[in-house]
């Protein structure tokens, strides 16, 4: 079970509160977690990564276990603590704008 914490505006869009819990088949990677997240919450499609390029939106970043994972390859395994559910994957909005 993977825990994902969404930024507030995406929690509102997905109508969830608190963390999202996802079951992932196979290796937990950014791609597999986001695939599962979008499968459960289709309204998030295009809001975290681009529909076509699948690249992370520039003003969002991925953190876990005190590390910035934003520039990791999408198919790289997530840290073991995230894969085990001990730590959440944090999707964080940049502190910018008005």
């Amino acid at each position, binding site marked *: 079970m993977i825990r994902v914490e969404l930024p507030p505006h995406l929690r509102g869009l997905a109508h969830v509160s608190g963390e999202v819990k996802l079951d992932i088949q196979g290796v937990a990677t950014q791609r597999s977690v986001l695939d599962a997240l979008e499968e459960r919450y289709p309204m998030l499609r295009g*809001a975290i990564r681009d529909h076509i390029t699948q690249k992370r*939106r520039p003003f969002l970043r991925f953190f876990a276990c005190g590390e910035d994972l934003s520039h990791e390859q999408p198919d790289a395994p997530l840290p073991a603590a995230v894969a085990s559910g001990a730590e959440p994957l944090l999707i964080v909005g940049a502190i910018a704008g008005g």
Partner: protein
Amino acid sequence: MSSVRVLVGTRKGAFILTADGKRENWDVSGPHFAGWEMYHLKGSPADPNRIYASQSSSWSGQIMQRSNDGGKTWETVGNKFVYEGVPGTHQWYDGTPHPWEFKRVWHLEPSLTDPDKVYAGVEDAALFVSNDGAQTWQELSGLRHHGSGPHWQPGAGGMCLHSIIQDPSNLDRMFIAISAAGAFRTDDAGKTWRPINRGLRSQYIPDPEAEVGHCVHHIAMHRARPNVLFMQKHWDVMRTDNAGDSWQEISGNLPTDFGFAIDVHAHEPDTIYVAPIKSDSEHFVPDGKLRVFRSRTGGNEWEALTKGLPQANCYVNVLRDAMAVDSLDECGVYFGTSGGQVYASANAGDSWTPIVRDLPGVLSVETQTLP
């Protein structure tokens, strides 16, 4: 008794204002989609309970919303806008080629006859259509592939397709406008397009009378007279009597002919409204006075409408989609400001009252007149 629903898009959410036909007591609902930029909301003429809304943010891009109950509840619908074929390039601000990139939906125009059909004008400029209630979108690429496309340049607000007008007497005919390419018309339901900018003169471009390159801010039409269009250009208020084949300036005695918003009275095709703005470098009303100007002669002769509007120390803007009219017997006129006020007139502009004073900056105002 008839009633009015005013759909307001702001920089931090959407608001729905409702009143009965007297338009004296207003109910304010919102914010819907709090914290998000709501560029535009518009109801279907064929089913007023069907409303489409464009929701966006710099963080999470474009989201699309749809309501089937007049804005009480909403569902997220399709937000996949993909340019047809190889997107190609347009010109960047400095004249260099720049790839076409989807940024946001500026304007939604539901079909006059089919609640599930809706057009979307987007940045970078293109026109999309959905035939399934906004679940999926297809580009009407004949517009962007008009031979002039590679030469289009963005205006200061981005290269946006912001105006979409359907001809109620000929559903194959449609008008659109792009900042800063100009106005275009299709006569075959969007397959092919021609620029309709003859008569426009823009001193700020290399050829002031070029076929494309004009910063058209908004266009408006009265449905009973679809060959007559009114235009607020970057500078100049213009009119065409032949569906855009040629334009004449009608700025007349306006204090400044810069502005964004323009609209037409619901029952008087020659009564038009503009909200003059001081200049392209000072986007606020001139002389600290919030004034709507009305022409009852189809242009050139304008009267200031000031009753109920602040006439000192006011420095707000009125954006291009932030003015609308209702179609009650005595036409109501509405506009929203960058300062978060939405003003209403229940007497065609003779006097005004604020419905709300303290919303986030208003991006768009649309009305629905309900039976």
